Structures are given as structure tokens and as C-alpha cells.
């Protein structure tokens, strides 16, 4: 049984249909990357999986359970967390409060978890009482991911975590993603830095015009000359 299985998803905003039957599968502990040109529906797919958009057709199964169109609160309780691409921290809350909000659905004592998350992101603990709005772009991405980790998720949906970051920061964000994955969290990643992302992925999907174009092992996609020419910039 796959961890996440989205089948024949048709979805969009209002009358505009963006996904015309996309299917995607993620196994336990995998990193899976979705690449594709702008407007191919990558972000829409993540939003639909997370229940922010209701698919017109198709189904999403998580851990063998049908979760199609379930509200986000329930998703988070089931261990599926989503980190949007931008505006993904609460700017007027302190860093510590942002993490507390990440644990909002938890009724138990999460102080141990908050220490673990700070251990993973030592930059954050130094500034735990600062407003998140004062953080740099890279630190905001770290905080957004850290907040999602507060519920000890089974799987993370990450929408371009390296968007708008300097190249050296891109590498460290991707390094953190590997670390999170090694701790047993499956990751579905949408990434512009396709080459780097595919290198660390067990599988990759190529999406174009709202349809599956190709799926394969990460390395095989990297070494596929057509993929390189069309989607990885030669």
C-alpha cells in the first residue's frame, strides 16, 4: 500500500480547469519531486492533495484512507502537512509562537518536540523571541518547514521551499529536506531547481499542461536526454 495515492485528479479554480487527470504516488519514506514548466499545475496539485481545492474528479488516498477534500485541520491531525510557497510564516508572531501554532492540533505536551525542532534549526533558537517578520527569506523558509514538523508528520508537501533564495541557501534547504526524510518523513516536493531536487529524489514526475508527462526514478530522469533538453535547461 502506498502512503499517498492521488488518482486521476481533475481540479482548478472556479471554471478554469488546471489539472486534467493527474496521478501521483508516494511510498513511505520516499522523496518524490514534481517538476514541470510554470503553469503546469504543480502547486495546484499540492493544494488539491491537501484539500484546499476540491477535485472535480479523482481521489486522494493517504495511508489507505480516502481523504479527498478533507479540511486541512484533519489532514494535519493525520500527519500530512503542507508548506506553501510564499507568505508561509506568521509575521507578527514570534518564532517560538509560530512553532506553537504548528502544534495547534496537538493536545499533548509538545515541549520535547519543540526542542528537537530547535536542534534541527539552531538558527531559530537564537531568535526565538523575535517577530518572524524580521527573518530573512532563507530563515523564513526554515521556520515554515520547522512549523510543519511540530506535529511529527508522516509526510510533508513542500511547495518550492527554495523559491527566491540565494544559491548557497538553496543547497542548505535541500540538505535539510534530506535530513528530515532520513528521520522517516516522506516528502512530496515541487521544485524549480529541478536538477538538484531530482538528485535527492527516489522518484520524479514531470507535469506539463496539467497532465502527467513522465515518471521515473530520479536518476533516470536526470540522465534522460529528452528530459534534460526540455525541462532541465539542456
Amino acid at each position, binding site marked *: 500500500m502506498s502512503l499517498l495515492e492521488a488518482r486521476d485528479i481533475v481540479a482548478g479554480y472556479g471554471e478554469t480547469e488546471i489539472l486534467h487527470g493527474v496521478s501521483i504516488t508516494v511510498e513511505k519514506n520516499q522523496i518524490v519531486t514534481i517538476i514541470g514548466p510554470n503553469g503546469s499545475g504543480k502547486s495546484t496539485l499540492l493544494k488539491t492533495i491537501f484539500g*484546499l481545492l476540491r477535485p472535480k474528479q479523482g481521489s486522494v488516498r493517504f495511508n489507505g484512507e480516502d481523504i479527498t477534500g478533507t479540511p486541512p485541520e484533519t489532514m494535519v*491531525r493525520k500527519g500530512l502537512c503542507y508548506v506553501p510557497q510564499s507568505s508561509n510564516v506568521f509575521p507578527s*508572531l514570534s518564532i517560538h509562537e509560530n512553532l506553537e501554532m504548528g502544534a*495547534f492540533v496537538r493536545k499533548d505536551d509538545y515541549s520535547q518536540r519543540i526542542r528537537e525542532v530547535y536542534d534541527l534549526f539552531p538558527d531559530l533558537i537564537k531568535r526565538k523571541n523575535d517577530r518572524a*517578520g524580521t527573518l530573512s527569506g532563507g530563515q523564513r523558509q526554515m521556520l515554515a518547514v520547522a512549523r510543519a514538523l511540530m506535529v511529527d508528520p508522516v509526510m510533508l508537501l513542500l511547495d518550492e521551499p527554495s523559491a527566491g533564495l540565494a544559491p548557497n541557501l538553496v543547497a542548505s534547504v535541500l540538505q535539510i529536506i534530506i535530513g528530515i526524510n532520513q528521520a522517516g518523513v516522506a516528502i512530496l516536493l515541487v521544485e524549480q531547481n529541478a536538477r538538484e531536487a531530482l538528485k535527492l529524489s527516489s522518484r520524479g514526475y514531470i507535469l506539463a499542461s496539467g497532465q502527467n508527462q513522465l515518471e521515473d526514478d530520479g536518476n533516470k530522469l536526470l540522465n534522460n536526454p529528452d528530459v534534460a533538453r526540455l525541462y532541465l535547461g539542456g
Partner: protein
Amino acid sequence: MAGMRKTSLRLPFHWTAGYSVLLGLVVVLILAFTSVIKLELVVNGLFLGTIIGLGAIGLSLVYGIHGFAHIAHGDFMTLGAYTSLFTLGVFLPRIGLDNVGLGPFTFGYPLFIALPLSMLFLVALAIGLDKGIYSRLRRRGVSSVVMAMTSLGVAIALRGLVQFVWGGGTEQYPRVSKDFYQLPMGVRIPPDNLFIVALTVIMVVALYLFLTRTRTGKAMRATSDNAELARVTGINTEHVLWWTWAISAALAATAGVLLAVFQAQLFPIMGWRFLIPLFAAVILGGIGNPWGALIGALIIGVSSEVSTQWLNPAYKTVISFAIMIVMLLLRPRGIFGVRD
């Protein structure tokens, strides 16, 4: 509302703005001590400002979290005042509680029963209105203008209800007259006003602790920052919206009761007439910033009271309106608004 930056529930305010407010206060005090303006009017304005503040904080919270201008807020105040009139004038006397003139105050301890009852009633009303009306509109995804216009309808309906039940005349809480405190420089303070300030301070401190120390309070600030992200994070934003109604309705009820005590009378448009000062205070402090709204309320209170030295008191509201327009033209994000 293009150009009106929502400023979120930011706690430590912008220091330069803080200093300019402080400077303004110093100038007003100097003018007062050199007898250019009457100190008594300044003091009275501060008392009025605390009442405006209780209403404006709630209005600002609703604006920040629900995202629309709650036009029925003034009539929430009216209804709060009138439900206490019922408790004080009809309900409690019937069971033998008709004490007035507690200590230096014009009212008796029954007010301490009536006020919580008014708060509870308004909280229930606000949540009922949300379930019956606003939540349905939310689910349809209507714009903030439609929400505001709906609240205008609610405002008119509530005022009609008050007029239907209590008639259109002026009323009074059961009271006895008490001597004012005589302070130097011709300042006379009705003892009731000290109660008004004390209660406001208690409520503001309680709100501050709620917003900064509790899980629900932090979730309210998070939702005010970014409602979509709050949902994604797993915050039950529907509960947050109810809490916001509950808090601002309780504050509005308190403001209404205190206003009735302050002006020693009630009339059906008392809250509606308060709406312009309320909005002026909210805009002055930066929309969505409750602490800014409180400072804005004090400024509005003082300036409209001081204006009566030269203008007919009937023009008080005009002063609030003028401040609001100037603010929107010059600094729409409010005194404390900072760009993110």
C-alpha cells in the same frame, strides 16, 4: 479597501510613532496648564477615550480577523447598555436588589450583576448572528463590502429592536447624584469615571494576556496575520472567528454600559452616534491593531472634548470625522502601521 494596510495584532508598537503620541500629549498638557485649553476637558476626553477604546478594540479585532468593517458595533454597545437597563430597572428590583449609590458611585452593586449579564447576552447574540447570517455568507465567499453592508442591516435591525422594546425616549439607570471630586485647576471628576477607567484597564490587561499567553489568543493573532496559512497550519479558524465575536461583543457591551453610566442616560441611537469616533480610533491606530485603536481612541476622546471649548458640542462627531479623513489622506496605515 485599497491603500488601507491591515496592520495585524502587532504588540510592541512602532517607537517613533509612540514618541510622537507622547509629544502630542505633552503639548496638550502644556496648553492645559497654561490655561489655553481647559484641563478639565482634557481629563474628560481621556475618560470618554477609554470608552471609545473598549469599542474600538473590538471593532479592530473584527476587522483584522473577519476582514470587514462591522457597522453594527455601535448598536452592540446600545443593546449592551439597554440589557443592563432591563436587569437594573426591572429584573433585579423585582427580586429586591435595587441598591444605588455604592460608595462614591451613582450606581449600586447590582451593576456588577447587570454588566456580566449584558456581556453574556451580547456574546450569545454575536455568535448567533454569525451562525445565522455571517457564516453562511462566508461559505458563499462574498466580498468584505457585502459583509459590511449586511452588518449595516443588522445595525438597523438591532436599533429597531431597542426602539420597539424600550421606546425612543431617553432612559436612566437607577442612580443617586454624588459629589464630584474637586481637583486643582478647576478639574472636577465624577467618581463614576474612576470606575470606568479601572474597568477599562482590567479588560485591556486581560485581553493582552489572552492574546499573548493563551493558545486561542495566539491563534487569533495568527489568523489576523494570515487566515489561509492559519487554516493550513491546522488552526480551527471557525473557532477563532467565534472567539473574536465573543471578545469584541463582550467589550462592546461593557463600552455601552459604561457609556450609559458616563453620560447618565441611554437613548436608542447612543451607539450608532458612537460609530464615527469608533472608526476614527481604529483608523488612527492602524486597522486591525487593537492597541493602536486604544491609543487612537484616547486621541479622539481628548480632541473631541477639547473642541467643545470653541465649538458647539453638537460638532464633536465632526472632529472625529475630520481626524479620520485627514488620517486616511496622509497616513492610511495609521499611526502605528508599519510596512511589512
